Structure formats: C-alpha cells, structure tokens
C-alpha cells in the first residue's frame, strides 16, 4: 500500500480516550473495501457470464478504463485538496478536438496541442478558484458549459475525423499484445503515484485539503499549488481526450459527456473522500476498475440496459456509505 497517504491514526493506539482498538479494526474494513468490492464484482460476473473472465475481455476493460483512469488520476489531486472539477468531460472533448484538428499535420505530435489545450483549460479553472476566489464547484460548472460550447461552436455538431496513419499507429496499436493506450495509462499512474507520495507538491496538495487555513498560515503557497493542480488535471484530461479521440478515430461534440460523474465516482469509490486531506492513486485505480467492470460486466451478463444506471448509482452510494469517515467530518451536508 501507499505510504503516509491515509490517516495514520489507525496504526497507533489512541491515547486520548477514543475507542482505539475497535476503530482500527473497522478502519481496516474500510480501507480494504474497494478491493473487496472489485473481487466481489469479478466473482459475480464470472459466474454470470463465461466470456467475462477472458484475456480478451480483460484487455477491453483496460482499454475502456484508460480514459477514465487518466482523468481520475488528475481528479485525485483536486479532490485530495478538497476541491472539485466538473469540467473534465468538456476538457476531454476540447482536447480531442485539438487532436483531431492537428493530427493530419502533426501526426503523433498532436499530443502537444492536446496537452496544451487541456492545461490551458485547467489553468483557467485554477485561476478562477485560486485568484478569483470563485468556489470550484461553481467555477468548473460554468467552465463545463463554456468548454463544451466551444467544441460545439467549432464543430457545429459535426464529427471531425482522424485519419492520419502514423497518429493512429502510435496511439492504438499494440506492443506485446498490450494496447499502447493502456501502457500510457499505466505510466501516468506511476507518475501520479510518485507525485502524490514522493514530492513536496503532493504533500502541499494534501495539506491544503487537510486544513487550508493551517496551510496558508504555515507559508504554503496555496494559490499557486491550486493552480498547478488544476493545470495538472487539465493536462491529464488532454491526454485522455487524445486517447478517446484515437479510439473513436474522431472528435465529436458529445465526446466525454457525463465523464465527470464517472471520474468523481471512481475517485470516491477508491476511498478518496470529498472532504480532502487524504488521497490514494492505488485507490483511484481500483475505483476506475470497479466503475468500468460494472458496466462491462453488466453488458456481458446481459443485464437490462435500462436497469444499469440504477445499479451504478446504488454502488456509488453504498461505497461512500461504508468508507466515509464520519468521525472526522462531524456534520454531513
């Protein structure tokens, strides 16, 4: 597991008179919950469908989950700092459009405009929050609509196709049977893990979520850290947009619609609470797998598509119900 990420309170017996022993056992259940849920899903779907537990389906799940994973890695930082970003789906669409418009001339290097557009969109969000002091929920809700609007304005609703051979080769081919997109996702996961657990920036993000006033008075450059964090999320959404565009071989105005909900759900189901101060890349990966497997497995098992949303929503609420630490939050709003 990761070092120092979740509350370390659980390791030490409590000296203040709070229920120590039982709490830590319960804590263990909570921390193991995402993994337990993942195992449960795999077992259930394996029984329900013979095609579920196959290598080819495994690759499909990984491919489906990569876009979600890349965006959710960035969201882990933002949620860990106690903020939110509702515009990720729109940034993904914006980046996919940038990719599609430049892929013919730049080839694989179209990743540069994709990242640049994503980072710029994240920069706007970060500045609105950190400098403009607009609450992130509102700022990014507005941004969600505006960024999507820009995509609509550019495309007039028509898809922009990607045909460049070199581009598609680089981002959709396989090496040793593993799709390149999955490799990119795994590399980014390692990088995100390193940033959260090994860098000063990662600690500062966590400190902002743990107690922003404390962080400010201790001299942490809170505004700057918040902006960097949104730029990082934007850049990751840029890559996610490129991968999504490459898979679909086109950018459309609808691409990434509703993605923000899956991204937030994946992070939260993975055990990173919306209250901030705590965050785990491994948890986010588990959350992404749970969200992706749930859709994939229900399709495989032939669950009525009209029923699927009800199951997904229920799983999300149940996960939070079990993992949320009510002792720390006190009043739930």
């Amino acid at each position: 597991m990761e070092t120092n990420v979740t509350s370390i309170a659980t390791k030490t017996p409590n000296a203040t008179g709070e229920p120590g022993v039982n709490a830590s056992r319960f804590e263990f259940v909570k921390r193991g919950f995402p993994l337990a849920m993942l195992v449960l899903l795999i077992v259930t779907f394996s029984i329900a469908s013979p095609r579920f537990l196959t290598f080819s389906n495994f690759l499909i799940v990984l491919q489906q989950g990569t876009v979600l994973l890349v965006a959710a890695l960035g969201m882990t930082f933002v949620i860990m700092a106690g903020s939110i970003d509702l515009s990720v789906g729109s940034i993904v669409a914006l980046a996919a459009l940038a990719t599609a418009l430049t892929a013919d001339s730049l080839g694989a290097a179209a990743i540069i405009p994709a990242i640049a557009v994503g980072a710029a969109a994240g920069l706007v969000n970060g500045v609105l929050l950190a400098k403009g002091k607009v609450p992130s929920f509102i700022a990014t809700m507005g941004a969600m609509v505006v960024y999507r609007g820009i995509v609509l304005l550019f495309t007039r609703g028509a898809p922009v196709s990607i045909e460049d051979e070199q581009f598609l080769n680089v981002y959709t081919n396989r090496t040793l049977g593993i799709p390149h997109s999955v490799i990119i996702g795994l590399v980014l996961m390692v990088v995100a893990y390193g940033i959260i657990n090994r860098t000063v920036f990662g600690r500062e993000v966590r400190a902002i979520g743990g107690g922003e006033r404390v962080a400010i008075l201790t001299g942490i450059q809170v505004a700057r850290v918040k902006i960097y964090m949104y730029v990082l999320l934007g850049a990751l959404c840029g890559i996610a947009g490129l991968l999504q565009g490459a898979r679909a071989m086109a950018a459309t105005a609808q691409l990434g619609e509703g993605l923000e909900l899956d991204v937030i759900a994946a992070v939260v189901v993975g055990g990173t609470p919306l209250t901030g101060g705590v965050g785990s890349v491994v948890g986010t990966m588990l959350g992404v797998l749970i969200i992706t497997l749930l859709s994939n497995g229900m399709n495989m098992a032939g669950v009525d598509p009209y029923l699927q949303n009800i199951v997904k929503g229920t799983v999300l609420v149940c996960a939070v119900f079990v993992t949320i630490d009510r002792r720390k939050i006190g009043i739930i709003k």
Partner: protein
Amino acid sequence: MTLAASDLRKSYGQTRAVDGVSVVLRPGMVHAIVGENGAGKSTTLRMLAGAEPPDSGVMTLDEASYAPPSVVGAAALGVSLVYQEITINRSLTVAENIFIDRLRQFAGPLGFIDRRRMEAAARAILERIGAQISISADTGRLNLGELKCIEIARALSTNPKILLLDESTAYLDHREVQAVLRVISELKGQGMTVAFVSHHLDEVLAVADELTILKDGQYVGTYRTTEIEPNEIHRRMVGRELARSIYPPRPPGVPSKPVVFEACEVAVGRELGGVSLNVRAGEILGLAGLKGAGAEALFAAICGDLPLRGGSMTLAGSSYAPSSPTSAWGQGVAYLPGDRHNEGLIADFSILDNLVMARPPHHGPFFDRAAATAIAGDLIAQIGIKTQSVDSSCRSLSGGNLQKVVIGKCLAVQPRLLLLNNPTRGVDIGARTEIYRIVRQKAAQGLAVILSSEDMPELIGMSDRLLVLRQGQITHRIETAADATEHDIIGHMA
C-alpha cells in the same frame, strides 16, 4: 437539593477517563472541580449531567437514586449543564437561543411564536443573572463572555436547582471571565448550587466554596477553598512538588543584542492604529491586552496574513513587507496561531507531517523522508513531545502535546523571530512548563520572541519587557516585566 456521586467510573476503550471519583454538591454551594488536562473533570461533570452514563458508581439526588438517561432527562430533575463549547446559533436572536429547544411553549393558537412573551421570559432570566445583554442585541456581535452568559441563561431557563458549568472560561479573555464569575456569584447569592470545571486556579479561589481535585481520572480529595493554599492545589493536581516557579529564570544582565524586528507606526485594519515597538535578539517581548486590542492584528501583519494600512517594519535591519505568510516564513518569521485546531496544525496528519510542513526537506521536487524523519525526531526529543513514533497521528495527542508540535513546526525553520499567540491556552501545567523552558532556551540562543497572552502570570513570568495594548494603541510600556503586577497591567488594558 444535594447531588452525590460515589465511585464513578468511565472508560473509553482502553483508557480509564474516570476511575473512582466521588463528589457531593451541597445546596447553595459553589463547587469547583480542578485537575490537569485528562484528569477526568469534564467526564465527571458530563456524567452528573446525564450526557454520558457511568460504567459503574452510584449517583443520588436528595438520597433518591439518580440515573438520568440524557441531558434533557437531567434537566427535568433539576440538573442543568452548560457545555464547554459555545453552542449559540448566531443567526438566531438572544431569546430564540435561550429557548431553542422549547420554542413550542411560546406558540400561540395558530402556531406562531409569541415573540413578546418569549422575550419577556428571556429578559427575566438575563436580569436574574445580572447579565448586561440587551434582548434585542445582535448575537453576531456579542463577545464570547456574553455568549457564555446566554448559555447560562439557557441552562437556567429549565429552572434547575443545580447548575453544572463545563470549563466555562477556557477561551474567554480577562474581561469575559469576570462577567461569567459575576454571574456565578449572583446565582450563589440566590441559593443555587453550582459546580464548575476549571483550569484557572484564580477564578476557582475567587468564587468556589469547595473544590475537588482529580488527577489521572482518580479522586484526590475535596477541600474548602479557605483551607487550602494555591501551591498545595497545584501540588496535588500535578502529584509532584512543583519547582518554585514554572517559569525558567531570565538570563542575567541587560540584553544589548541587535534589534531583530522593529515596527514603526504600524496600523492594520480597524484594529490596530499606529504602534511602534522593537524586539532584540534573545529577548521575549510580552503583549498584554483584551481581545481585539490589536495584538492579533499586529501578528497577522508581521506574518504576512494581513496588509499594513500604514507604517513600516524592518527585520534584521532591512525593510520588511511580507506579501504573504510564505514570504514571512521564508524570511525567518514563524507564527504560532492562537487557534491550535483550526490554524496551528492538521490533527489528521502525522506528527512528522506537521513538524516539517513549513519547510519540508527536499531534493529538487522530491520530499526527503529520511531528512524529515531526522528533523522530526530531533524536535520531538528537544521539546519533549510524548509519542511512540513520528508517524503517529496528531489525533492521538493531548492538548499540551499538540501545542508542542506547533512549537516544533515553528522551530523547524530555525526562525529569527517567533510570534506566539496564547501559546498555552488549554494546556496543562506539565506541558506549560516544558513550553516555557524551550521558548526561554531558544531565546537564550538568540531568537527574538513576541508573546501575546491572556494569561497574566505567564506574561509577567516569561516576558523581559511588556507592552499593554488598548483599542489599537500602546497604553503602557514596562521595561522590566519581572517587576510588573497584574493589577498594574489590567489597569492599562480596560
């Protein structure tokens, strides 16, 4: 009514919070319960008030068995509790706050609240306790002492025979403490039985008839306040002979070291209107004053949290105008805020995380955990933070230990100027002694310290020089703090 409890016990998990405490509250007497942090004072009071059931022990009310199921149940029997925390809702009126759980009793036939009747009832209670609070006052503008009086009025509105006050004055300043003490004396004059928990021995001796000392959850004894000396109380609370003074000796000789920090006609917000002061290396400068007198605003400006409205500052001889706390810390100014929990540290984080928060050791962008562990281990040993490991969560620490962590966080940056805002608020005497020792030791090594405190003995005992603030102005300068008297300081404060 006589409320008696014998051999009360209460455990939380492995910890025995209260372990065999007996106490008798006799009619018309003011009874104080004293002890260090974690002695079991609040738990005892909460059991008497029905807020928590004891694990074992017997409680009787006028010799009848007494086992209230809840605070409401206890109130119905005539025992009322005032909580430690302020529970006033500042968006409601004074009267609404007093009757918050019984608004229904003022409902008219159509279900609307009869405001006039409610306000008359509220006014009657406030008059009874002699509180100078207008019924139409804006609760958002009242000070903590006034809010506490409203809480007391709320507890009295159920017509109790016995009033229990939990640690009522822990966060109140001198003027507010006096207001609460006046209310207690007033109630005592009316024959009310009052029991209260307190850290402050002076207030105990001022109003209590009897006092019960607890230590580590155990009962030490009950005494008449006229029969026991303050030193003796201290000794029994701590359980060992205290050194003659809890304040370390000042270094001999007049400090003639260089001036580290100087403020010239500094004005901040509406609170501080042009003060000039300086502090030398190795010196502890004390700031006395009521809340809002300007010390907080001055600290906010020095630590870069608020901009100057006028004046200028110099640090180590060159112009100093921090644009943010980042800039202040970067130039060697460390700030210990007055609110440990919301501003001083992040309780959910480990001791190590908090200790190196201001200046994390790093190689390029990467956090250097080995160096951080060494720094944290060194600070823990130096300051005497009691913990098993640097990775323990701060949640497991007591108030005194938490404050030592905040001090460690400040010292970790090896500051040249240290700002202490009420560094021992809610800290027990053992931890206080250690905090005083480390601060004096660092000063002896050349650190300049500005200490703002509501605790008069602390200011007199720790400071080399003292300034008294009133309404944003310096009203008095005391060059040798050791010769100052509380009376003298208070005279210039209010």
